[in-house]
């Protein structure tokens, strides 16, 4: 089992991770969600060894068995798709027929075969992320860390990417990915919701929903603006523990509602 235990990371006076424990079992996808500055990238970078811990422990495989797709491009712009893959594969010791076969297989699965000779700089955003993903898994890592692999990617490429992620997990890799897309996170085996460096809630989507206390209502005119947020044309309002006023419409909260509601609870705790 890979992961972090009681991980604490400070950047100056800022507590980026506060006693965070996350386990990433082999063969499953764990999604880390949270707003900007929640600590998602710090958690991932701590796992790959890019950020030293101020407290706690990291359990990770050696670099040879680690795959990482950073939030940035993740590929060398002046190299072609094929050259990018070959360069990274070479570092992991893949060569000859094994490399040729592996490259062809991954390019095919990512629908990038026609672009194999194209410079990475000339790829679309989605294609570039898929190339980065291929480079992260070319050596069949035991632990795969993906930092917002689908941010800024078109919906079709997002589907492709998610398929690749699922296939990696299905073949045994432990996958930890951060995402800002909650619909993506719902598909993960485990969810970790971070807020200001602390875990708000974690577990499977069903567990998170089942453990969610309180009621979410839908309204045009929220009773307490500080507990409301916009969803489409309507507003949702959270009633932690208390019953909503009569006549309001109660809705079944989805992950977005749950994350926002828990974040509001946290913010009110901090303010009080």
């Amino acid at each position, binding site marked *: 089992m890979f992961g972090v235990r009681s991980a604490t990371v400070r950047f100056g006076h800022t507590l980026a991770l506060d006693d965070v424990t996350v386990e990433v079992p082999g063969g499953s996808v764990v999604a880390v969600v949270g707003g900007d500055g929640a600590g998602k990238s710090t958690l991932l970078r701590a796992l790959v*060894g890019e950020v030293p811990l101020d407290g706690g422990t990291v359990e990770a495989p050696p670099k040879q068995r680690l795959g990482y797709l950073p939030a940035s491009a993740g590929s060398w712009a002046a190299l072609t798709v094929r050259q990018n893959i070959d360069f990274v594969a070479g570092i992991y010791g893949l060569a000859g027929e094994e490399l040729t076969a592996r490259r062809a297989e991954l390019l095919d699965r990512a629908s990038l075969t026609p672009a194999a000779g194209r410079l990475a700089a000339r790829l679309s955003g989605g294609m570039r992320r898929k190339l980065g993903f291929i480079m992260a898994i070319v050596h069949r890592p035991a632990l795969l860390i993906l930092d917002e692999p689908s941010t800024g990617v078109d919906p079709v490429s997002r589907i492709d990417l998610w398929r690749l992620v699922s296939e990696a997990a299905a*073949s045994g890799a432990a996958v930890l990915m951060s995402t800002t897309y909650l619909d993506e996170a719902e598909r993960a085996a485990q969810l970790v919701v971070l807020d200001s460096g602390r875990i708000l809630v974690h577990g499977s989507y069903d567990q998170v929903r089942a453990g969610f206390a309180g009621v979410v209502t839908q309204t045009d005119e929220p009773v307490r603006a500080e507990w409301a947020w916009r969803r489409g044309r309507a507003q949702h309002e959270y009633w932690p523990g208390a019953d909503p006023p009569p006549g309001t419409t109660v809705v079944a909260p989805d992950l977005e509602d749950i994350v926002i509601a828990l974040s509001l609870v946290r913010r009110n705790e901090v303010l009080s």
Partner: protein
Amino acid sequence: MIVKEFRELVRDRRTLGMLVVMPLLLLVIFGYAANFYVSSLKTAVVGPQASQVAKMLPSLFDVTVTEPSGTQADAETLLQDNKVDVAFVTGQTPALALVNGSNLFAAQSAVAALNKVGNKVKTQVLYNPGLKTSWVMIPAIIGLILTFIGTIITSLGMVREREAGTLEQLAVMPIKPSQVILGKIAPYFLVASVDMIIVTVLAIVLFGVPFNGNPFAFALGAGIFLFVVLGLGVFISTISQTAGQAIQTAFFFLLPQILLSGMIFPLEAMAAGVRWIGYLLPLTYFIMISRGIMLRGEPIAALWLPFLVLTVMAVVIFTGATLRFRRDLAPGRPASPARKQPAAAETVGTA
């Protein structure tokens, strides 16, 4: 808009520093260093009447060596080793004045002064008989090209990796920081070496610049100098986050080297308060080596001082810069007790 611009400017310390430091630097350089006229020439007088001639010479000739038993060959050795700008050989009529043409402006001052003397002295310019500017500039330009590639191009190549986020990716791969550094630097080292050879050959072919010394000694000097400037390039990359910052910082390193290394303005013509800066710059020592070997055919033993200074600079700067770069590549302290591998090795299929 104006307030916004000022706010941005105040937060951009590097540009602010450039705006404040650059005018001061240019003022100091052009005020104290920009001087082509050499007012004091290191002079040797050899031969039987050495003592008498030394006393008769005008104040322009600063006699540092008086050797009555010395010969013309001794005088030529002093010039070849760049210990003097002018050497008078007495005991013959007219007396012979040998001028070190590799120190162009000193030589021009000497020739102008000696022409006023008339027939009493026969003047002979060694190492650059035509007193051609190209002959003294090109050995220095070779150093400038190496500096340009070593600092600007190398730092840009390194920073581009950081900007693209691929440096972070390399850091988590099973590749040693030393391999990353070597892989990043080796191409620039090779390109700079090829550039150096091309420029040197073109200098000889197009401008007739002589190559009187040992090419291997020259290559050794250029190689050591390359390590210094590549080290500077790596250092600049460690203190820059963007390509713009790297160029800005490299400019800070490049400008004093162009103006204060003796490439354009002779060091001996600079005010003492500015000249010492020149002696801190690596290009100053490369120019001593390149002019010494190319023009004067100096043996490596006579150039021990610039070779030693450049070697010390190479070791200090290159080691310091690569250690800084290495720290950027491995910030997570992988040997830390906080980082463990699971007891049972995980096995996976074909992801």
